[in-house]
């Protein structure tokens, strides 16, 4: 595994079946996850059902992303020109190291030894916090969940609710024990009421916001024509980071660019309903370069490749880059529901992680990442839920074949055996697998009830070597039974 990719996959991660095995033994994690995924899933269905033209919006979303990917070079140049014209500075980073170096130099130039951060998967991917720490700069995560994870010295377990593996009493204990070490301590009478815990976080972080000189953010969207960058959030910590410090550094994957400002009309409808299942998230910030007298007077946009251009090269895997990180596919996934995000051993968990992670690090370079495409039952629920119509099941099948190809000559078990092993670990017994698949398929049907049925693409072959056709719609078990009989 090349050095620059280590953060996409957490170093030393066991392969999926082994990690899943541990996760499954954690009863609390499983209960929390089930509660979270079920609740968000039901809410999302209601939010989506409110829009009669959901399928049309999804289609437009996927087409816009398709346009971006096919002309990514052009849009990035346009974005660079617009941001520069608006007073921002654009940097290009090929990999995690390069991006981290740019951030560190910028922070140093400001003479700062601390930065505030709004949750960003791109900066997690490049391991920015660790890189900053190695250079003597303290990065404070300001999302409540990220703060919990950071204070606990944990890994996040969900894109949207990263601390879902922790219950309120644990959070209270973490706050009591850790907050004082990093700033304003938790009050002595801290209870485990969510409201009280949120208030403790508010006070702890407020002090940091008020004195922070530099903020680091990610970006949900960036419009090539105007240079406008968008951050979608709930808590207001994003607004704090984007508004109060003198310098703002935004690290953005190159795939996040949108052709035009007007395209926000599609994504600002798709994202909130798919993500937090709201009509609109509490806060969305849009800014264009630098505005005199309002907000940061220095704005740096770092365009990060880190495996994305390589992902683009695979026509069948390319659309993994369409992802808008809503986490809907996680919440509908029967495998994710049972194992949680950390079993995926990657910044990107769940169905999207299973297709994005191996591509970002490169198929055949990490045993762990290579095990991820097998962590699925191919039930299709993720495709039905995805607001930009990424055909994850089909991509999984494609990547399984690629993994097997990459390991040709090694004594790797057959793909069916790998997939079966993952399934057996996750579901324990064939009966439970059957139930999970029925639920998954059912969820899919409900989600797609207004015309969103998942239609299989042109018949896909498993690989040339293994000529067992795998219609993606077929459930894992049916497929396995048939395949096993050959």
């Amino acid at each position, binding site marked *: 595994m090349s050095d620059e990719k280590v953060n996409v996959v957490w170093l030393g991660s066991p392969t999926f079946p082994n990690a899943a095995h541990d996760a499954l033994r954690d009863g609390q994690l499983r209960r929390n996850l089930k509660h979270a995924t079920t609740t968000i899933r039901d809410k999302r269905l209601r939010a989506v059902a409110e829009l009669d033209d959901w399928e049309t919006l999804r289609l437009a979303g996927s087409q816009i992303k398709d346009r971006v990917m096919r002309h990514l070079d052009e849009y990035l140049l346009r974005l660079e020109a617009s941001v520069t014209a608006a007073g921002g500075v654009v940097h290009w980073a090929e990999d995690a190291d390069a991006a981290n170096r740019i951030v560190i130099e910028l922070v140093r130039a400001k003479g700062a030894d601390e930065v505030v951060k709004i949750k960003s998967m791109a900066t997690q991917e490049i391991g920015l916090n660790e890189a900053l720490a190695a250079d003597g700069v303290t990065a404070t995560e300001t999302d409540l969940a990220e703060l919990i994870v950071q204070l606990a010295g944990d890994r996040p377990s969900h894109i949207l609710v990263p601390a879902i593996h922790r219950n309120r009493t644990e959070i209270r204990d973490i706050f009591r024990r850790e907050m004082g070490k990093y700033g304003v301590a938790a009050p002595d009478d801290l209870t485990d009421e969510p409201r009280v815990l949120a208030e403790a976080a508010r006070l702890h972080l407020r002090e940091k916001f008020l004195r922070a000189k530099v903020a680091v953010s990610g970006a949900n969207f960036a419009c090539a024509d105007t240079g406008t960058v968008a951050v979608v959030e709930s808590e207001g910590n994003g607004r704090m980071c984007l508004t109060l410090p003198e310098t703002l550094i935004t690290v953005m994957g190159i795939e996040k660019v949108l052709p035009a400002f007007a395209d926000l009309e599609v994504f600002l409808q798709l994202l909130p309903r798919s993500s937090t299942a709201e009509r609109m998230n*509490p806060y969305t910030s849009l800014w264009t370069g630098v505005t005199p007298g309002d907000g940061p007077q220095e704005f740096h946009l770092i365009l990060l490749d880190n495996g994305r251009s390589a992902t683009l090269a695979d026509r069948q895997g390319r659309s993994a880059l369409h992802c808008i990180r809503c986490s809907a596919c996680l919440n509908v996934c029967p495998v994710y529901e049972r194992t949680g995000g950390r079993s995926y051993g990657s910044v990107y968990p769940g169905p999207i992680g299973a297709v994005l992670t191996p591509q970002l690090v490169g198929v055949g370079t990490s045993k762990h990442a290579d095990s991820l495409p097998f962590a699925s039952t191919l039930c299709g629920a993720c495709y039905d839920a995805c607001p930009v119509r990424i055909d994850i099941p089909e991509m999984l099948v494609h990547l399984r074949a690629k993994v097997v190809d990459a390991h040709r000559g090694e004594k790797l078990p057959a793909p069916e055996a790998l997939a079966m092993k993952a399934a057996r670990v996750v579901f324990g017994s064939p009966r439970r697998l059957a139930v999970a698949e029925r639920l998954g398929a059912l969820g899919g049907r409900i989600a797609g009830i207004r015309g969103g049925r998942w239609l299989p693409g042109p018949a896909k072959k498993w690989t040339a070597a293994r000529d067992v056709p795998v219609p993606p719609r077929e459930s894992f078990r049916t497929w396995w039974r048939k395949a096993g009989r050959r």
Partner: protein
Amino acid sequence: MTGSAAKDRILADIRSALHDVPRAERAEDVAVTRDYLDSHATGDVVGLFVERVRDYRATVTRVPEAEVPAEIARILAERGVRNLVVPPGFPREWLTAYDGSRLTDDPPLTAAELDASDGVVTLAARGVALTGTIVLDAGPGQGRRALSLVPDLHLCVVRTSQVLPDVPAAVRALVPDRPTTFISGPSATSDIELDRVEGVHGPRTLDVLLVVDS
């Protein structure tokens, strides 16, 4: 600083990755079907705005213009606001009934001063009915972004004529180079056991005063 060698390499990698895209293809040639609805709002748009803003547990009061000063004073008194941030361009005549102290942003207030205030009153750029959203764009009477963020209470005055039906109309109405904030209810988190808590970092209270335009 901008690393032009890195830029060239990334662009070259992208171009070689896109070997399957015909050279003659222009971005506009990739079809985008825009036959989604321009608005999902039907009937009484202003009524829908009120309902949807309230769904987020924000308050909405509808008043005729003549009653605005009295209503502002009433809301601020009820909320115990004695130290109010008033952005430049906010109509003076609307604050005649409020008798607490005012913090003007001229010269600019420090973050600590904003933090020590009780609340802020602002105008808005737009409202979006379907999503119950208020859009601020730092225009007159709205102030720079920090003003509507740091104080713990935000009283926002919106005119009925500013309310648009749905997101597409709002995006069209925006001026991209203005710093813009969509506000849909008070800040919220569900990070602890999915229990929704209102108010983490932004104003914990959002009160909307809807001025009925004649």
